[in-house]
């Protein structure tokens, strides 16, 4: 068995076709007729550009614009004055086209690949791809036509270039194995877009296999088997069926409402960290944003972001989501999140210290800038304000009075905002949970943050391995707390959501349903999984299960019972 990087999920079984790299060596020549050589070079570039343009158009149609832009970038690169311009200068000076192409590309390749930046190293592999493609044109080498391989082929090659990937015809390629490339490389992105299982970075694989060998690849685990024994093959045939069945089931939920088995509608939102992620949320079929962490604006910066900068970011997210809900959590710093330029004091117990809303209310200038930016963004979509780490009613009142003050300022400045903007609170401390009934009178909505709620309820530092065993949202104390929060919100008729990891946990979902949760906010990639699980439970079944669970004494018993009850 070979191990590699699990780059695209799924099981692939098929017959190997090795893609051997051509011998691209050439003899450097001194050129006397430089005009003719330049003509030869230009024709090669022209042929490359035409071929790439056609491929890009094809990819745009079959896969998507993002993937096509990779190839279009190759054209911009070769046409750049510092590329083809420099190459032509070298030809003018008497070098042959191959030498000129190689020298300039290698110079940039060296420059980009030495940078300590993932994106730049990615560009280095683009340059290498461009070089090889144009060199083949110059040397008159025709590539293996990947679009013509037989169905059930597993491609094995050193690196899968975007130009190779673009020739892949959906049903024919059962899997991809390469010697280089990572999870974020173009080959990985394209393999995922085409839903072809792929294992990358398997050292020496090209020389270790022969054409027509049988390959089993597990793109979920990053494993490759060559000519496996019958029992292994049989196991993976089953695993493949299971994967395909599960995938088809999940795909059947695309574009559907999120409904329980007895037809009750709940909301399924996404957690995001940047405005761009909102696009991902939509692509993954999220119905709104349940948690937009605003920290990125502050962390990836060397100074406080201005009101306008923040406004732009919030507005962008709101506009991407159209009229769908976007819940923006105000600055949640302190604890384990430090922002150096704020020069916050070192504390003995940062998680019990000056963090989140406590810090914000203590630094109203910083907080007002953010709240005003959010208010302005609310004119462009359905935006809500969420206060992190609430422990008292006073804090909610404090934030609301700042919001009212800022609304007056905006009125005076004649700037637009949503006059009915909702202000809700995160319930993630033991005290907030115990006074959820009081907070429900002040807040327009609740969102339960299970990570902090578990930590504060269990009094446990999850980073400390000696006590990490206590850190579980399935502890009876945490479950009771969650139940109480949801019931208080239901009683006060305000919506209650959950934006912690537990909201997408298949074991937790039936309990949340029984308690009466209105909105689940999950990582975008988990939207369909969560929707699928929610669809399997009726409220009555969930309540029956939760009654049994809440009568249990220990976390171990609870988890064991939930695993038995789980509906896969």
């Amino acid at each position, binding site marked *: 068995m070979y191990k590699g990087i699990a780059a695209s999920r799924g099981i692939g079984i098929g017959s190997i076709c090795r893609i051997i790299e051509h011998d691209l060596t050439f003899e450097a020549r001194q050129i006397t007729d430089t005009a003719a050589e330049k003509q030869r070079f230009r024709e090669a570039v022209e042929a490359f550009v035409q071929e790439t343009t056609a491929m890009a158009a094809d990819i745009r149609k079959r896969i998507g614009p993002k993937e096509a832009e990779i190839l279009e970038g190759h054209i*911009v690169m070769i046409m*750049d004055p510092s590329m083809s311009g420099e190459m032509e200068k070298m030809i003018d000076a008497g070098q042959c086209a191959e030498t000129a192409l190689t020298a300039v590309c290698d110079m940039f390749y060296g*420059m*980009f690949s030495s940078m300590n*930046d993932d994106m730049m190293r990615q560009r280095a592999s683009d340059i290498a791809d461009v070089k090889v493609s144009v060199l083949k044109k110059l040397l008159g080498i025709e590539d293996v036509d990947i679009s013509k391989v037989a169905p059930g082929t597993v491609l094995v090659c050193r690196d899968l270039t975007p130009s190779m990937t673009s020739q892949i015809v959906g049903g024919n390629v059962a899997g991809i194995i390469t010697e280089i490339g990572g999870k974020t490389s173009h080959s990985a992105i394209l393999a995922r877009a085409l839903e072809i299982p792929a294992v990358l970075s398997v050292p020496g694989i090209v020389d270790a296999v022969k054409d027509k060998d049988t390959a089993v690849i597990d793109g979920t685990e990053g494993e490759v088997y060559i000519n496996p024994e019958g029992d292994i093959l049989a196991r993976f045939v089953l695993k493949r069926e299971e994967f395909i069945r599960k995938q088809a089931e999940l795909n059947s939920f695309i574009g559907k409402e999120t409904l329980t088995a007895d037809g009750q509608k709940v909301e399924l939102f996404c957690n995001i960290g940047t405005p*761009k992620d909102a696009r991902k949320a939509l692509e993954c079929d999220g119905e709104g944003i349940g948690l937009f962490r605003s920290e990125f604006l502050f962390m990836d910066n*060397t100074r406080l972001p201005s009101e306008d900068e923040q406004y732009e970011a919030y507005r962008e997210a709101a506009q991407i989501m159209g009229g769908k809900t976007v819940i923006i959590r105000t600055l949640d710093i302190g604890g384990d999140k430090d922002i150096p330029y704020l020069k916050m004091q070192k504390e003995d117990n940062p998680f019990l210290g000056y963090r989140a809303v406590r810090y914000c209310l203590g630094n109203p200038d910083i907080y007002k800038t953010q709240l005003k930016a959010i208010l302005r963004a609310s004119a462009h979509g359905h935006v809500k304000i969420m206060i992190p780490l609430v422990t008292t009613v006073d804090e909610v009142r404090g934030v609301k009075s700042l919001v009212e003050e800022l609304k007056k300022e905006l009125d005076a400045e004649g700037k637009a905002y949503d006059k009915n903007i909702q202000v809700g609170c995160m319930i993630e401390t033991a005290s907030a949970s115990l006074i959820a009934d009081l907070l429900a009178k002040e807040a327009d909505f609740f969102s339960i943050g299970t990570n902090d709620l578990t930590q504060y309820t269990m009094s446990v530092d999850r980073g400390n391995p000696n006590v990490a065993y206590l850190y579980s949202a399935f502890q009876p104390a945490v479950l009771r707390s969650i139940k109480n929060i949801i019931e208080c919100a239901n009683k006060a008729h305000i919506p209650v959501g959950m934006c912690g990891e537990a909201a997408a946990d298949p074991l937790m979902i039936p309990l949340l349903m029984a308690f009466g949760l209105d909105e689940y906010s999950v990582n975008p990639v988990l939207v369909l999984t969560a929707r699928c699980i929610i669809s399997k439970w009726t409220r009555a079944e969930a309540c029956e299960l939760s009654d049994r669970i809440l009568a249990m004494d220990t976390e171990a018993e609870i988890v064991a019972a939930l695993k038995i009850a789980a509906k896969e």
Partner: protein
Amino acid sequence: MVSKKMTIKNEQGMHMRPASLLSQKATAFTCSVKINYSGNSYDCKSIMFLMAACIKCGSDIELVCDGPDEEKALNDISEFIESGMGD
């Protein structure tokens, strides 16, 4: 010669798309267009050098134009950078 100090706001910095658009914009002018960044000067008319500069979000740069149409170039290009370069 005219110049203007500014901050790059694109979330992902000067990656392929903005670099491509910026180089196309700069090429339309006769004057030279350069970006000074962390001690080096980069030719804006070249997507390769723009990407090689590895300019991150939040970086402070200086845009320098030198030539007959420098005023208009500085105006147009700085506006384009301010606008987020199509990101």
